[in-house]
């Protein structure tokens, strides 16, 4: 591959538990400085894949290479270069934040000279400096999560693997952590898993959608929306008799399909209008309704979100079965 910029290379990765294939034949690469989102419903194999990349579990088949080192051949080299935040933050409840990070730094053999400054930098970064002398068991879930993130950052690894990093945080913290992850993405290569779709589209440059242990799609969030949204959708609420409104909408150039939705009250009914992607039907729609004298009460475009795509992919697979 060109450039040799791949930080993580995964080939034919398979993990079996007895008869069950938790992960089946995964192939993907992550380039330097990239933030890759890992998206899938619960039990899709996200955590298993991350556990294998970080060397916690062994794969049944296939290879994982991090910075050119194979996880099976030189686990130590790989583990040195990865910071991992598992689903459950691996913190010791009976230690203080500072002692814990100190232990992690020793465990990762951080040079004694830089250890102290690095730990305070990391605490500053995830904003837990004020709690440095508190026992971890007394911290709230959100702070435990931050300590977990701090732990992953200690030793300034090239690659960060974060398994649902914003679980259990309040909305303000979520925004902070997302911002932090984006900032970290400038220096680190990041794999991030989530089942919260807006998070992935907000933070990640590329998305892997994984379902039942297999890759269902892999692309940028924008391309995914383009590829799957063959039509654009509008939600329009009009006050007027159903039949004539429907007919009027159908006659507009570019409209492909009209779906009558909810009857909001006696007079106004909402419709979902599908049209060709490159034709904007909003203006003709307005004039058509104005001509008939039916006021438009609401008009908004329903762009295909990552959420829709995700559901489409996951349900499509079901139909195929």
């Amino acid at each position: 591959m060109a450039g040799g910029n791949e930080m993580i290379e995964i080939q034919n990765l398979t993990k079996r538990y007895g008869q069950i294939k938790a992960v089946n034949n995964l192939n993907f690469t992550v380039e330097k400085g990239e933030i890759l989102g890992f998206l899938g419903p619960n039990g899709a194999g996200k955590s298993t894949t991350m556990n294998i990349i970080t060397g916690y579990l062994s794969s049944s088949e296939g290879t994982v290479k991090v910075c050119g080192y194979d996880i099976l051949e030189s686990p130590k080299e790989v583990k040195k270069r990865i910071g991992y935040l598992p689903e459950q933050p691996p913190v010791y409840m009976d230690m203080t934040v500072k002692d814990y990070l100190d232990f992690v730094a020793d465990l990762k053999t951080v040079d004694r000279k830089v250890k102290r400054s690095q730990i305070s930098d990391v605490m500053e970064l995830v904003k837990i400096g004020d709690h440095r002398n508190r026992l971890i068991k007394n911290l709230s879930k959100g702070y435990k999560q931050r300590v977990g993130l701090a732990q992953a950052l200690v030793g300034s690894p090239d690659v960060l693997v974060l398994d649902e990093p914003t679980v259990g945080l309040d909305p303000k913290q979520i925004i902070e952590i997302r911002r932090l992850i984006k900032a970290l993405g400038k220096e680190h290569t990041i794999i991030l898993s989530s089942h919260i779709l807006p998070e992935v589209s907000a933070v990640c440059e590329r998305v892997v959608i994984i379902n039942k242990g297999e890759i269902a799609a892999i692309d940028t969030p924008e391309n995914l929306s383009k590829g799957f949204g063959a039509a654009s959708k509008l939600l329009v609420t009009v006050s007027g008799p159903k039949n004539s409104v429907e007919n009027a909408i159908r006659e507009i150039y570019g409209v492909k399909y009209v779906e009558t939705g909810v009857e909001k009250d006696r007079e106004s009914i909402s419709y979902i209008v599908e049209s060709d992607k490159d034709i904007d039907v909003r203006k003709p729609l307005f004039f058509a309704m104005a001509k008939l004298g039916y006021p438009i009460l609401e008009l908004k475009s329903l762009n295909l979100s990552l959420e829709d795509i995700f559901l489409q992919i996951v349900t499509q697979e079901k139909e195929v079965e």
Partner: protein
Amino acid sequence: MSAIFWKEVKSYFYSPMAYILIGLFTLLTSIFFLPNLMYAQGSFTGNLSTMGFILLVIVPVLTMKILAEDRKNGTEVLLITSPASITSMVIGKYLAVCFVFLVMTIISFIYPVVLFAFGGTFTVDLIGGYVGFILLGMTFIAIGVFASSLSENQVVSVIVSYVALLIMYLAGSLSTIVGGIAAKILNWISLMSRYDGFSRGIFGLSPVVYYLSFIAVFLFLTTRVIEKRRWSQG
């Protein structure tokens, strides 16, 4: 390895665990020490064999959390995904338990000192006896560490180590009953028959080698159990 060692030592001494167990050990040893004072028994080597039995009670409780807790709390992920190898993690943890045990042992030095102060005689066999005692304790600990790797449930791990230690404790006497190949096997695992020599003041090289290999085998098995789980666990 040293990071894990110090972390575990701290966690023993920052929690009541170490104090309770050291206290219990000292209390039980003191009770069995009373007859020495009452009947003016000047030799301490006999007491070491009783202390060996007390260890059997103490060690499983001391070791039960050492690996099981990490697995239960998910901190095992941190240790395994760190650059430290599984072997160094197991050895670090093992040595931390040994450290607590050594503190216990050093506290027990007070009994022979009391005896000397009241006119007891110091004999070289006491040193040999203590070497045997320390080796026995370290072997118990290796078995306890192994038991702790088997389950994430500390109760399971403590019961497994009690059963294992009890079998090894009784193996010597059992072997005289059964005879044949069973007796031979029981003799292999009889920890106490090697210890008897020490507490009678006989210092032999072969029991030392025996205990050290016992420790090595159980620590190796522990690393295998953890390694094996990486292949099969969900």
